[in-house]
């Protein structure tokens, strides 16, 4: 497994929030798959870190979780954004842009 995740660490929240803002009520595996799919396999979320991140965001009140029963009879925990979470997407996004711009400037001028 590639070790590109480090660069992603700080932006994991952003990615998860962004995914959830497009498609609501996803469970953990679906969120992970979505990130991987959309980034064309470039970004791979370290699977284990996803759940602590989700639980942390749930504790911060950005996402809300509920248990649903799937077709196969098993339960899954699905997540959706709260109002606070929707605001947070914007905040995280602009912070990411600021960081990316800063990194780009360093790359250009160095």
């Amino acid at each position: 497994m590639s070790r590109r995740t480090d660069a992603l660490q700080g932006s994991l929240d952003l990615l998860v929030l962004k995914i959830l803002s497009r498609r609501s009520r996803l469970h953990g595996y679906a969120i992970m798959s979505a990130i991987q799919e959309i980034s064309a396999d470039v970004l791979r979320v370290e699977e284990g870190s996803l759940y602590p991140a989700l639980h942390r965001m749930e504790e911060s009140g950005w996402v809300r979780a509920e248990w649903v029963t799937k077709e196969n009879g098993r339960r899954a925990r699905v997540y959706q954004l709260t109002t606070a979470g929707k605001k947070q997407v914007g905040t995280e996004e602009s912070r990411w842009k600021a960081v990316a711009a800063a990194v780009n400037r360093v790359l250009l001028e160095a």
Partner: protein
Amino acid sequence: MSMWRRVTNLFRIKQVNNEIEEELQSHFDEALAQGRDPDEARRAFGSPLRHREASRDARLITWLDALRADAIFGLRQLRKNKITSLAAVLSLALAIGSCMAAFRLIDAVLLRPLPVANADHLYEVSRHGVFNNQSFTYNAWSYPLFQAMRVAVKDQAELLAVSNTEPEDLTYKSDQEMERAQVQYVCGWMLPTLGLRPKLGRLLSESDNLHPGAHPYAVLSQGYWEHRFGEDPKIVGRTFRMDERVYEIVGVVDGEFTGTEPGTMVDIFVPVMMHPGVSANDWSWHRTLAILKLGAAVEPLRAKLEAVSRAFEEQRMNGATAGMPKEQRDAFLNQQVLLEPAASGASQLRTDTRRPLTILCVLVVLVLLIACANVANLMTAQASSRARELALRVSIGGGRWRLVQLVLVQSACLAFLAAALGALLAWWAAPFVVGMINPPDNPARLLLPADWRVVGFGLAIALAVTLLFGLLPALRASTVNPATALKGGEDAHARQRLMHGLIGVQVAFCFLVLFVAGLFVTTFERLSHESTGFSGDCVLVVDTVTKQAQPLAYWNQLLDQLRHRQGIEAVGMSDAPLLGGGNWSNFISVDGLPPNGVIAYMRRVSPGWIDALKIPLLDGRDFLPRDSQPGSALVNQAFANAYFHGKSPVGRTFEIVFSGNFRLRFQAVGMVGDVRYEELRQPLVPQVYVPFRILGEKGEVRDVGGADLVVRTTSTNPLVLSQFLRDEIPQVRPEFRVSRIRTQLEINQSHTVRERLLATLAVFFSVVALLLAGVGLYGVLHYYVLQRQREIGIRIVVGAGIANIARIVTVDVFIALVGGSAAGLTLGIASARFMASLFYQVKATDPPMLIVPTLVLIAVAILAAIPAVIRASRIDPASMLRVE
């Protein structure tokens, strides 16, 4: 997730863990469903344990979780050392319970604000003066003076007139069904001014305050309405008769307001205008309370009240001055007016018990400190046996702070268990002590709710106690050095120094408690054995009343009839019983000279009264039925000393000087022995006894409306006659009725109630303190011997005798004992000054007061040391050394 959820999650940890588990499991299932290799998926996922921990921390409050774990561990530790823990919990519970009970009492009597709208603007107006070199504070006022003051300070404050609450006889039906209720005379505007509302009907108002005797209306307190009338909704309009007058109930007060006197609960409020003394300018009978208006300052108001009071008294004394020595007159006029906050009310109980309650409070805190020292010692000893465990915790990475928390949490478990037990004790003890405050026939009634104030106090005490006894052992535990502790050798000396220091502190406090108890017990002993000058044994005091005043001849007939009944030895009557209240005093003029300033105290008595009380007749004769007032008088020895240079005044004449220099002439027909008049503590005062036969202006004999019959019975338990008297007296004359029967001894004992209460509580607390100190001492010595087993074993091998061993074991503790006693003694003598007014014929520096506590402490110390010494001397050197 909300904070609340995180807290509640603590109590469903298992479920939280399961949920996390299930979610991670469903992740795998999904991965497998997508066709991934199980091993690869597991590897990609990483350590499930770590992720679970991380998720768990997000969903819980970690420190609270740790706290929970510590609490469980602490409780387990307590369970492991059952005996020690039980001793600790019980001793702490006793101390905390006493503290809470004392707080409930102090809160109810001194602190709790009255349930009225403007309690914090409420002040009591009283007067302070110095007479015959003694300073007095009076809170009684006459109503005309009150009115003058009210008008004068109208802009700054509203004044309230409130009588003392007295138990009164009244009836809702016939005269045969008299009952007692607590009645208070209040000015009409009092209830509305205090922001109170009627639950039913109306309250008294300004219009009930217009003409003396013209407003026979009454308002009931809610509590009385509830328990006497079962919340009868038709109560308004009902009537009752009290003192020959019929009152109409016009309303019920809403809420728990029961008057402004903590200690008594008013049942019925009636207007001051119905009080017989409302127009008299020389009858002081009510308290004055002031409600300051917004922005009004205390000092100008006080000055104004003082000016009005002085002007009024000056006016009143005009004409009376001839009968009064100048310095008396000045002392009287120079009284200072005091204005003191009375947010929690004003009552005799408050005045009487403020100091005793404060002392009680100090004793209780001392006992609590002793208990804390005890528990701290037990915990320290226990911590030494846990040194290895703590060292292990440090070595595997437990932080110092976590260790402090661990030990503190265990202390807290102990403290809260003890507080819960203590609360039960306080629940029972506080009403029990209240029951002891007043004489049994008129017990103090206090609101003792267990509300947030009490609960808050209990929690605060539990917390304080945790810190007091937990902090030192906790900090000590946290400094554990794993290297030495795990090797088994640890410096025990520092720990022993701490324990001995605590023993010293315990001994000092214990000494103080014993010392104070000794003083109170001696005071009670001396006071209750104080000679009264008369014999109260076998004597009943029968408070007899009539509907209307009856001719004296009828009263004499009653006395004659009773005198010849079986079981009755002698009968007399007086206007009030000796030591039973009722104070009537005047100046005396001999040979027409101005009074010499000594006050004589009066009592109206019948012929045969001195025989019934076995008061010795020193000279002359007793009253005869023909003696009348003015005319004949009996005087006592102190009277002869004060006005006749100690010579018998029999046959001589003197004048009683009333206010306005109005004089009545008397001839002394007899001289009797001195008796206590009003107070046991007072010196014997000059007394004049005058006959019941009062001649009016036209020479007619006045009727008598009520008197206290003094009945000497032949039985040692005079109360067996009480039912007979209740039945017999109305038979002699149907107009007569018995209101109340007491024994004279009961009246005498009511003067030592406070002393008995203090002595009982002080003895109780000394026993507790001694017990705790003894247990503490025993525990420390026991630990000490355990620690030094090896050394003692070696000493025995090389030939040390039992005396030697005993010395080694006890010497340090003995030093702590001596140091503690010395400190306690110093504290005791210093503090005795604040209690001196409560002592009677005993001083803190009396040698027995100091020697007895010392001896008791030494005895307890020896008792506590014996088991440890025996244990030390029985150490078997062979087996001891083999273990090593």
